[in-house]
């Protein structure tokens, strides 16, 4: 999966229509709630068969940090 495809996937996870940019702070994204965290875990499990640790997600501050959690599975 490409980095850009992952961001599109994230938009769907958040059920968000507006664009997402890598430098956006998670605390400023209204849709980033506890259910979104679960959806993000599900997304990574579905696409990469990998379980992302809850604590690691808690430590993410930006969209870019989230992408970094999956970077081993991304093409670019």
């Amino acid at each position, binding site marked *: 999966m490409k980095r850009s495809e992952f961001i599109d996937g994230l938009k769907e996870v958040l059920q968000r229509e507006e664009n997402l940019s890598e430098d956006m702070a998670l605390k400023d994204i209204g849709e980033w709630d506890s*259910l979104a965290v*679960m959806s993000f875990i599900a997304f990574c499990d*579905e696409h990469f068969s990998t*379980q992302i640790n*809850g604590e690691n997600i808690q430590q993410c501050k930006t969209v870019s940090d989230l992408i970094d959690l999956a970077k081993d599975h991304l093409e670019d």
Partner: protein
Amino acid sequence: MYRKRAVIKAIATYLPESVLTNEHLSEEFGDWDAQKIYDKTGIATRHIAKQDECASDLAVAAAKRLFDKQICSPIEIDFLLFCTESPDYLIPPSSPIIHEQLELQGNCGTLDYNHGCSGFVYGLALSKSLIESGLSENILLLTGETYSKHINPKDKSARTIFGDGAAATLISSELLEQERICSFLFGTDGSGAGQLIVPAGGMRQRSTAETGLEKEFADGNRRSEQNLYMNGPDIFNFTLKVVPKAVKSVLDKSDMEIGDVDYFIFHQANKFILEHLRKKIGIPKDKFYLSIEDCGNTVSSTIPIAMEDALRQNKIKSGDKLMLVGFGVGLTWAACLVNL
């Protein structure tokens, strides 16, 4: 070979009268409207026990409904099992108190066991063992829970998900050739004990003024150490790790493929987790029970409540092969096959 086999004969359930609706939650917490709560969680109502109503009272009510079906009378019960994490007292156990209220006969054994989400399947294993070893003929397996009493009123997430309720299941001995409850798989991961916990109030940390102090957390929920805490993401990861393997294990033990199972009933934890697991494991939608609309997550009662509902809706019938999978608090899990 004809042997005494444990057979599930009847199930009855009881939900307390008082109801917590999404409208009420929305009024109290303000950020999600009632429809959004329903869309996100699949839950419309949860039933909440009254102040003076305990898990044992709910279990007694479920048992009385079971006896009303007249499949078995109270004096025929020779063993009572009660699964709860909300006993009336630390001492004595609650099952003798329930025994008294149901007017069961004196030479009936009673046993409380402290278990949650996987509790019903563990209860089936205990029941099968008692019956097939010749120690018991008619077992009343009760599950009853009142998580509402552990949850802080200002913990929106927990109040949204959990509901109170009880179930009574009659498991009896029959002389049959084949096993009717079989292919058990058990699992434990104590490293996850802290992921679904009421930290204070037991022996490890007694209740004090300090443990009663409420704190606010990043997710906006408030709770004290005497309240229920649940780490949703870590529990979700746990289910992803163990549930698919548990299903495979039961299939292997039964020499079956997924397609040979008529219906799957998992612990009804939450709609999102269940849907994801269903897709991950490859279970068709019409063979998978998913409904927490009326009662939310009732912990150890979700599986028997689901079974009663599935029977009522003719989704399952006599002769069907049912796989039951419980998973959660402990962390523990258990699965088995039931030939209805």
